[in-house]
């Protein structure tokens, strides 16, 4: 990360954003031309290497993206569902081989068969209409079950929009809202579980001209679609949540960074912002209160690492989204070198309820240290896949057996909490509850609480090969353990699967430890968890791939 580039990018303001200019330049050909990059260099007074280095990072801005018309989801749930190969064959009837790309993941984990064509995502039986889809850009027939067990905060309808934003009037009247958020003990839902009130307070106490609330809507974890659910079904909960956070942190702008793999989310959030603006809740001097707050939606360009908060900030600035060292923390020096609070969608969407019902009401739900509710995404291996909202502390068995109504076929493990979450063997279902502590004390990770099942017949070696391939593809390449380790790990597993090569267990253990304790961020640092779980719980199955 370059402070110079942060400054040069920031002085153009959010309306004239360098990162968005890359995407615009790529519209015609699938990637920006050298002439486009020279124009941007001149406009932003940066180096040509600065803009070239940045665009070469993103899946959807690279020359390899040229001519791609349809993308197959290569996420974990579509992989274990076994739908990818047949889907690709069906697409080959309509598209040339080099017109078919890959995306990871489209968040259609509940009905699989997922693909993306011309800014629309499809899944389930949509492939049957491929001729029509190609000709007339049909909408998707996607449906999924949504249900709450318990308090039901995030799944409750937001109702009449004008009425819903009255909550903000109460915030403005009170003049102080941080104490209520503190009382709620709300912790970040993005993976780390950090209390949001700490960040808001730290940001509010900084002296700076402009502060930012950034919503991390780069829900890249294969298997998770709960943030997509909020953005598409409860968009005003997120917008109002960001307004409240902005007020508490004394921020001026809210930036929603949404992944390109969720085109509907981008449109729906933008429309919701426009609606809230027309009602007077966004802009200068909101309702005569003296509080001004504006929004900016930024569409990402295909890089999982942008879900890491410092990489995300560099991405918005048009820099290479490499993970930054901390300190400085984003609340000290974040977007454009200004104090910034970064939180994920689900966390921010809890704030309207907390303001409306009080922090203590929120803190009364859940366990001692994990308060409130959690959205859980269940994949297509369940009899009733979908989005479920449960109070923190709800037994995993209740989620699996009652809400999901059990598995369609025998499942040997569940990968919970994204690619960096733990691999929970089926026999542990009764030992876990949905909260941060239960998962961490049992050697797993709650993460986004997404559940991807690995059926009995799916080879564990293929699954861990997939995890290493994913990490090697998505590593930003900055820190040595992740850049080199993810590729070497992938090669070891790939060779042991497809050649006579047998892995040396001591070497693999060394590699995992190096990545786990040595990596700069949670990507390289997190991958060893599911691999170690697989080695522990499925040692017999994996034995043939190791030296005796």
């Amino acid at each position, binding site marked *: 990360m370059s402070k*110079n580039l942060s400054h040069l990018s920031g002085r153009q303001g959010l309306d004239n954003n360098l990162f968005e200019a890359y995407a615009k330049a790529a519209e015609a050909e699938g990637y920006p031309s050298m002439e486009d990059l020279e124009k941007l260099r001149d406009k932003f007074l940066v*180096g*040509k290497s600065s803009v070239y*280095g940045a665009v*070469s990072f993103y899946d959807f801005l690279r020359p390899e993206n040229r001519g791609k018309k349809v993308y197959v989801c290569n996420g974990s749930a579509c992989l274990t569902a076994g739908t990818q190969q047949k889907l690709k064959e069906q697409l080959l009837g309509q598209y040339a081989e080099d017109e078919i790309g890959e995306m990871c993941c489209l968040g259609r984990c509940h009905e699989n068969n997922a693909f993306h064509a011309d800014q629309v995502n499809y899944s389930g039986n949509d492939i049957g209409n491929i001729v029509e889809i190609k000709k007339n850009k049909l909408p998707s027939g996607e449906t999924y079950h949504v249900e709450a067990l318990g308090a039901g905060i995030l799944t409750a309808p937001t109702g009449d929009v004008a009425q819903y934003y009255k909550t903000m009037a109460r915030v403005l009247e009170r003049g102080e809202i941080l104490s209520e958020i503190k009382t709620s003990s709300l912790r970040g839902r993005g993976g780390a579980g950090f209390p949001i009130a700490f960040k808001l307070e730290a940001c509010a106490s900084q002296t700076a001209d402009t502060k930012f609330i950034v919503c991390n809507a780069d829900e890249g974890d294969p298997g998770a679609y709960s943030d997509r659910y909020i953005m598409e079904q409860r968009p005003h909960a997120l917008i109002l949540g960001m307004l409240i956070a902005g007020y508490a942190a004394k921020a001026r702008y809210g930036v929603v960074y949404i992944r390109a793999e969720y085109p509907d989310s981008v449109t729906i959030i933008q429309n919701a912002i426009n609606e809230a603006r027309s009602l007077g809740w966004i802009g200068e001097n909101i309702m005569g209160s003296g509080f001004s707050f504006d929004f900016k939606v930024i569409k990402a360009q295909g890089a999982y690492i942008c879900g890491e908060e410092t990489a995300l900030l560099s991405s918005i600035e048009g820099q290479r989204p490499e993970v930054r060292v901390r300190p400085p923390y984003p609340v000290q020096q974040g977007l454009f070198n200004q104090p910034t609070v970064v939180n994920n969608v689900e966390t921010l969407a809890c704030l309207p309820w907390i303001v409306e019902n009080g922090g203590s009401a929120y803190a009364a739900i859940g366990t001692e240290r994990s308060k409130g509710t959690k959205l859980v995404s269940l994949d297509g291996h369940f009899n009733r896949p979908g989005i479920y909202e449960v109070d923190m502390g709800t037994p995993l068995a209740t989620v699996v057996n009652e809400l999901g109504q059990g598995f369609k076929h025998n499942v040997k493990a569940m990968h919970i909490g994204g690619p960096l979450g733990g691999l929970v063997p089926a026999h542990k279902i009764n030992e876990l509850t949905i909260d941060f502590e239960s998962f961490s004390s049992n050697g797993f990770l709650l993460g986004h609480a997404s559940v991807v099942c690995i059926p009995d017949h799916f080879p564990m070696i293929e699954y861990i090969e997939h995890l290493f391939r994913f990490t090697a593809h998505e590593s930003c390449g900055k*820190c040595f353990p992740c850049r*080199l380790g993810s590729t070497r790990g992938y090669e070891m597993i790939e060779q042991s699967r497809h050649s006579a090569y047998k892995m040396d267990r001591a070497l693999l253990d060394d590699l995992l430890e190096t990545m786990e*304790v040595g990596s700069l961020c949670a990507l390289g640092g997190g991958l060893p968890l599911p691999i170690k779980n697989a080695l522990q719980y499925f040692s017999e199955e994996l034995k043939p791939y190791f030296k005796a």
Partner: protein
Amino acid sequence: MEKTAFINDVAYAFQEGDTILSFVRRHLGTDYVPTLCDAPNLEPFGACRVCSVDVALAAGGPRKVQASCHTPVIPSSYIYTDSQRISKLRKNIIELVLTDHPLDCLTCEVNNNCELQTVAARVGIRKVRYPEGKNHLDRTKDLSHAYMTTDFSKCINCGRCVRACDEVQGQLVLNMAGRGFDAHIVKILKPPCRQ
């Protein structure tokens, strides 16, 4: 009263703004903790992780591995620069680096004047255990510039040239491009327009 922290169980005074690395270096010498991506006059970068140390918040407490170059010293903390785990980590990182580096030290022009060679010898690398895989050993030398030559087959992606070009020179001529294993240095020598 001066603030102190412990290095290998001996108490030393640290200064405001010290990173663990600057703290250890002041008391025990510049080479006490090995580094590959750190450089004078550049901001901490945290890429190579070779400078990692073990840190406990109290005597005998649980230890956490931290990269010393960008981690501030915590008062009264216990820093272990050469624990077994740290020695192993450094060795394993260097082994990974050597999987994508020519093993031709004896004929290399910087033989005996090479930080990687020094650190590799220090951590005691004997052999590379990984099977043969992707590498960048076929990159050719660039001798086109009058006095700056490059051989990217030997580049370890420490990012020092990119950062010097940005932080010291303000030129933005060099940058990394691509990502992951394919991340590499690009030189775009046409200077930025200053209109």
